């Protein structure tokens, strides 16, 4: 019998297991498989092969039964996912439906998920900004969360490493709080975005309007051709999967690259139940998987385990990894696992019109979506009654006016030859939220999912700091728009629930001190060093930048550290 068990064990043994095949997990898989390690990439959903599994990618709008609108019944059945802006008839097959994967909302929380190979990297908004030391030093300076165990110099080379591979379009803007990177040519600002940039530069010292940096190939380089990708062709149908590989997704870039090494085993429909911990060696030895279809339990073994299951699912797996040594979840000696979850505050929009530049318009579609304003609030010193600050996205285009009262021939003419109206300006805030012990996830004691795994209880909310920040954004963006001569300025509260920013972070935060953090500066669990957490769960604070680039850079950095430690036999 023991012979058979050993045989099974040996067949299920790899050098490294990576849990989750999205942006961060696929980076881990790429790094390990490239270096010759036998790598098992576990994905709980189905396979989505680049191009082949993008069923809607080349469809015209009129080919969709409801012209992209989701039917009423789907909205009633799946209210959570229907609140996500990207969930439409062309992309709905890449989203988790509410009923299929329930969770418990202690407070309102929209948990938006993509359970398939590539995860949400197919669906993301592709905005990629580096962090700076204004972000990494934030918690220590402002007295919240714990100090980050790393600084910009630790991660800068890994930002470069990731940017060169995925392709990032942007300008060298020379802004200390938003470090420059390895950029392909930027997408241009629209005429009125340029006007706003000049207005802000002239009248608001310390504030900047730049072309948004995005993970699109404005000009593909040899490395991108080698990946089988070509230039972005401005379709802006990214959420369907891009047959050109014009933007970064795990499906188009890192997973095929890892597969080509011959060292990657991709196992789909593998729901990770827990990490297996061995008391004698004081190490994790593998993971317990439930086959999503057969519900069969299978154990996989490896020397090193990377958790990249997405922020809250990584927390869930760790909390559910109970052993004699870790009765409250793997690495949870300090009872902080699942706590200090944070996200981004998107609760406000400012819109306006502009009557200037009537002899200009835009044409085509902008993958960068327009302009970006990095955080200026409380940057060098505290200058408001709330902590931290916000960044903003800004996009502009000419309105196309049709006569709403017209009927018949007049309406037809109006529809086919719309008049160009004023410029319309749209901006949204992206605020840093403060990680707090009271924003947390736990496991339910009674209810489980179809695979016998406890349901996640999510208890996360906005606070006064978020509300003050929203008011500040209304005031300041309104002032900047006013100075630019914009009119009809509308300040619109966005009733978006936490979670619908799809930037959830934390729960297994990085830190120097094992008493106050879960993972160390190399993303290793303090008390179980062969388990690494490198997705959003590891984030100590949230900054105002879109987080995915940082997840990928942290992952590449941690994977290469792990490779070195494995060579030295320390792992």
């Amino acid at each position, binding site marked *: 019998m023991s012979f058979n068990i050993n045989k099974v064990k040996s067949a299920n043994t790899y050098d490294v297991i990576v849990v989750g095949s999205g942006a961060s997990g696929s980076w881990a898989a790429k790094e390990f498989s490239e270096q010759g390690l036998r790598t098992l990439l576990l994905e709980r959903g189905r396979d989505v092969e680049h191009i082949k599994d993008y069923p809607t990618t080349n469809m015209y709008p009129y080919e969709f039964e409801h012209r992209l609108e989701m039917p009423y019944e789907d909205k009633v059945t799946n209210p959570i996912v229907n609140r996500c802006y990207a969930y439409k008839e062309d992309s709905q097959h890449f989203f988790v439906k509410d009923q299929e994967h329930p969770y418990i909302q202690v407070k309102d929380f929209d948990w938006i998920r993509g359970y398939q190979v590539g995860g949400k990297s197919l669906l993301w908004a592709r905005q990629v900004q580096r962090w700076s030391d204004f972000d990494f030093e934030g918690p220590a300076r402002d007295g919240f969360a714990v100090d980050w165990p790393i600084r910009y110099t630790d991660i800068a080379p890994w930002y470069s490493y990731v940017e060169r591979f995925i392709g990032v379009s942007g300008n060298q803007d020379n802004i200390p709080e938003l470090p420059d990177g390895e950029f392909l040519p930027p997408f241009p600002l629209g005429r009125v975005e340029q006007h706003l940039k000049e207005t802000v530069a002239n009248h608001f010292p310390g504030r900047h309007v730049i072309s948004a940096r995005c993970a699109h190939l404005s000009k593909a380089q040899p490395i991108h051709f080698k990946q089988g990708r070509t230039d972005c062709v401005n379709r802006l149908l990214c959420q369907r999967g891009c047959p050109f590989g014009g933007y970064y997704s795990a499906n188009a870039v890192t997973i095929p690259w890892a597969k080509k090494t011959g060292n990657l085993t991709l196992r789909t429909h593998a729901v990770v139940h827990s990490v297996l911990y061995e008391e004698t060696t004081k190490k994790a030895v593998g993971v317990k998987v439930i086959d999503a279809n057969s519900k069969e339990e299978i154990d996989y073994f490896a020397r090193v385990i990377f958790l990249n299951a997405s922020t809250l699912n990584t927390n869930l797996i760790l909390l559910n990894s109970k052993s004699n040594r870790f009765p409250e979840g793997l690495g949870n000696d300090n009872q902080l696992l699942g706590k200090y979850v944070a996200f981004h505050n998107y609760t406000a929009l400012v819109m306006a019109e502009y009557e200037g530049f009537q002899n200009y318009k*835009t044409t085509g579609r902008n993958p960068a979506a327009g302009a970006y304003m990095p955080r200026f609030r409380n940057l060098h010193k505290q200058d408001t009654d709330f902590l931290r600050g916000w960044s903003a996205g800004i996009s502009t285009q000419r309105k196309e006016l049709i006569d709403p009262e017209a009927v018949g021939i007049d309406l037809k003419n109006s529809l*086919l030859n719309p008049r160009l109206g004023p410029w319309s300006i749209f901006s949204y805030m992206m605020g840093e939220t403060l990680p707090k012990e009271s924003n947390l996830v736990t496991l339910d004691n009674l209810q489980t999912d179809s695979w016998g795994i406890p349901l996640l209880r999510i208890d996360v909310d906005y606070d006064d700091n978020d509300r003050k920040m929203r008011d500040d954004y209304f005031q300041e963006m309104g002032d900047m728009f006013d100075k630019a001569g914009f009119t009809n300025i509308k300040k619109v509260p966005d009733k978006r629930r936490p979670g619908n920013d799809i930037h959830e972070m934390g729960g297994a935060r990085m830190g120097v001190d094992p008493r106050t953090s879960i993972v160390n500066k190399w993303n290793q669990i303090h008390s179980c060093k062969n388990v690494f957490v490198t997705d959003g769960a590891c984030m100590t604070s949230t900054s105002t930048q879109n987080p995915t680039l940082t997840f990928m850079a942290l992952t590449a950095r941690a994977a290469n550290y792990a490779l070195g430690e494995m060579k030295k036999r320390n792992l």
Partner: protein
Amino acid sequence: MNRRDALKNGLLLLGGVFVISGCGEDQTVHYNNFKLKATEVVFLKVLAETIIPQTDTLGSEKLGLHEFVLKMLDDCHSPTEQAQFCDGLSRFRKWAQERLEKAFENTSLKERTHVLQSMGEVDIENVDLFYKITKKRVIQGYLKSKYVMTDLVPYQLVPDRYVGDVALSS
């Protein structure tokens, strides 16, 4: 219900989307979530053609836009709106009949257009909502039809450009 039962009950399956029961003036068209009299569907067809008429380019009837309105009503609107739509449709017809002294669908395009141009003055329960939904869906169906997106205002699947400051020739 199988096909034989359907026939026995005087129901006819049409493309699996809706069924017609009854005969003559009383024919009823059953959609998944509401039903209309066959004459009401004809009325809607004429109304939609009035909103987007045939000119030197195709109009609503040739493009089947009233069917698109009903498809969207059936699939994308709440039961409340469906009920309000059906009620509004019926009240609209009555109101138009009184005003025109004959059925809306039996008047000239010019008369019908005139009626729609004065819709702003009408204050009858559900009529406004009915007309709003109809007009919105007719316009959507028109602009998002293969015909318009191919022949009149070609949709570019691959624009391959973004220019932020195109100067217009004045």
